[in-house]
């Protein structure tokens, strides 16, 4: 089975956001594989371990993304592809078009990705890619089994579960609960250095000029207003509970 994983490098969840000169500062930030994409990488490796085949991880993004692709190789992926080019904007229409151009001459059984990226949080690229490639997709998957050329998937729909049978090739996005991703082992890290790693630019792809024109643009970037200092209630616990309910009624007027 040939499995591709589309992956994005993101800020670590513990990072604070600092804005300067109209952009989010990246200096000193710790980067990770987007957590949802990590479930997808883990799933792809488990599929290969069970039934053979090949796992290719691919990212469209800045050069620094190569570290995350290396991590995925160290986890057990077989090959990595980084498409990095300053002419590619972050607009989801553009990113998915670039990926679609890459996949145009590829054959695959499965494409896996994350449910959404924890930085931009739009959750568009994977689903758009499925549409561009004209393959079925199911997003937010917490279970994936592959009996005889089909996929049986369970989707988390805000707490409800939807079970679907999907013919391959197909694209699925991973939701929390799909698995527990492994840490790269030391031998894995050593092996990763020798695995194929392809670096591409737009010049390596066939893509129409209009597919590179962003459909959206940012006009402002700002931090949310800081919350005002709160109040720590005092007294015996029953008094505090009564006081809190009263405050919610009189001061905040929310009850």
């Amino acid at each position, binding site marked *: 089975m040939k499995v591709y994983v589309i992956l994005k490098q993101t800020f670590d969840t513990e990072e604070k956001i600092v804005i300067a000169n109209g952009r989010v500062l990246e200096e000193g930030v710790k980067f990770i594989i987007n957590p949802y994409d990590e479930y997808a990488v883990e799933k792809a490796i488990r599929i290969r371990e069970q039934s053979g085949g090949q796992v290719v991880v691919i990212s469209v993004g800045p050069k620094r993304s190569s570290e995350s692709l290396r991590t995925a190789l160290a986890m057990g992926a077989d090959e990595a592809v980084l498409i990095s080019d300053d002419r590619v904007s972050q607009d989801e229409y553009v990113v998915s078009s670039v990926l679609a151009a890459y996949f145009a001459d590829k054959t695959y059984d499965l494409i896996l990705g994350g449910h959404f990226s924890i930085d931009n949080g739009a959750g568009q690229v994977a689903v758009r890619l499925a549409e561009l490639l004209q393959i079925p997709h199911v997003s937010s998957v917490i279970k994936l089994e592959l009996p005889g050329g089909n996929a049986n998937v369970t989707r988390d729909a805000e707490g409800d579960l939807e079970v679907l049978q999907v*013919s391959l090739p197909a694209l699925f996005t991973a939701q929390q609960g799909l698995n527990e991703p492994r840490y790269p082992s030391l031998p894995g890290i050593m092996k990763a250095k020798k695995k194929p790693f392809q670096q591409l630019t737009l010049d390596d792809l066939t893509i129409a000029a209009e597919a590179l024109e962003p459909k959206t643009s940012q006009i402002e970037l700002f931090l949310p207003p800081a919350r005002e200092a709160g109040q720590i209630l005092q007294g015996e616990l029953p008094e505090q509970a009564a006081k809190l309910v009263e405050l919610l009624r009189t001061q905040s007027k929310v009850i």
Partner: protein
Amino acid sequence: MSRTYTIIADHREGTLRQVTLEALQAAQIASLEGDRITAIIMGTQLESLAEELAAYPLSDIHLIEHDSLQHYNAEAYLSALFGVFDTVRPDAVFIGHTAVGRDLAPAIAARLHAGQMSDVTSIERSGAKIMFTRPLHAGKAFEKKVFADFPWVVTVRPNNIPAAQASGGQQAQVVRTTYSPTPSLRSVVKDVVLKTSGKVDLTEAKIVVSGGRGVKSADGFKPLEELAEVLNGAVGASRGACDAGYCDYALQIGQTGKVVTPEIYIACGISGAIQHLAGMSQSRIIIAINKDPEAPIIKTADYSIVGDLFQVVPLLTQEFRNVLK
């Protein structure tokens, strides 16, 4: 030039979801005099939903009723939707950022070769310019964006844009569309397990009672569930509580998990890691109940009670019961 703004109605257990009316409000903000706002409802037994929606300022409501649309299936929904799009010809599509909307919207955008903004929390119009605000890094930052051109697609985050008001005037015209499913569907819904029936949806809840590692066990969530029930709210959890196996990942609030913006957020036994704060710090009122007076959550909270949640939460439940009865 007159535009057509189309909202796709999201419904649950036979009633419209609040976010549908918030999407309608977004469409009203975006539209100008002379523009059309239409709605599309897909599913089964849509009569009462159509009646409900007809009270709002819409030019027409398209019903696509078919057994194969009873449960969400991207392929079937897309094929039904694009059948209606041939007549509606939307310039812009609005849908809730929900289980259905977040899956459907990017596919619609791709088919329309359109831009999309996801998880929009506010929308403004100034002259010809329509500006959308949306969170980055789960709300640690925000961006304002504009589209390059029509058509476009927007998903609306629940609980942020005020709901549209019923017009009380002329009723919208209801148009029924027949839908014949294509026999060649590559994905089939085999089963649906409803685990949230009768419960308040976490992202739409006005009040969220959330538990962290301090809850200590799955049973430890019971007092939180009781409090949530009294308040007609929903129960959420921190990543710590989910990782420890105390509850389902569907409840997780944070940068991984869900972002919620209720009127009241009650954090019980949650220390307040940055990744959790990202998911709830836009709530209107935050209440922290924690044994540790140094916990970061207390610095974010409007009101804090330093104490054991297993003592405090039942006391609160009792107080609210007295007040709300």
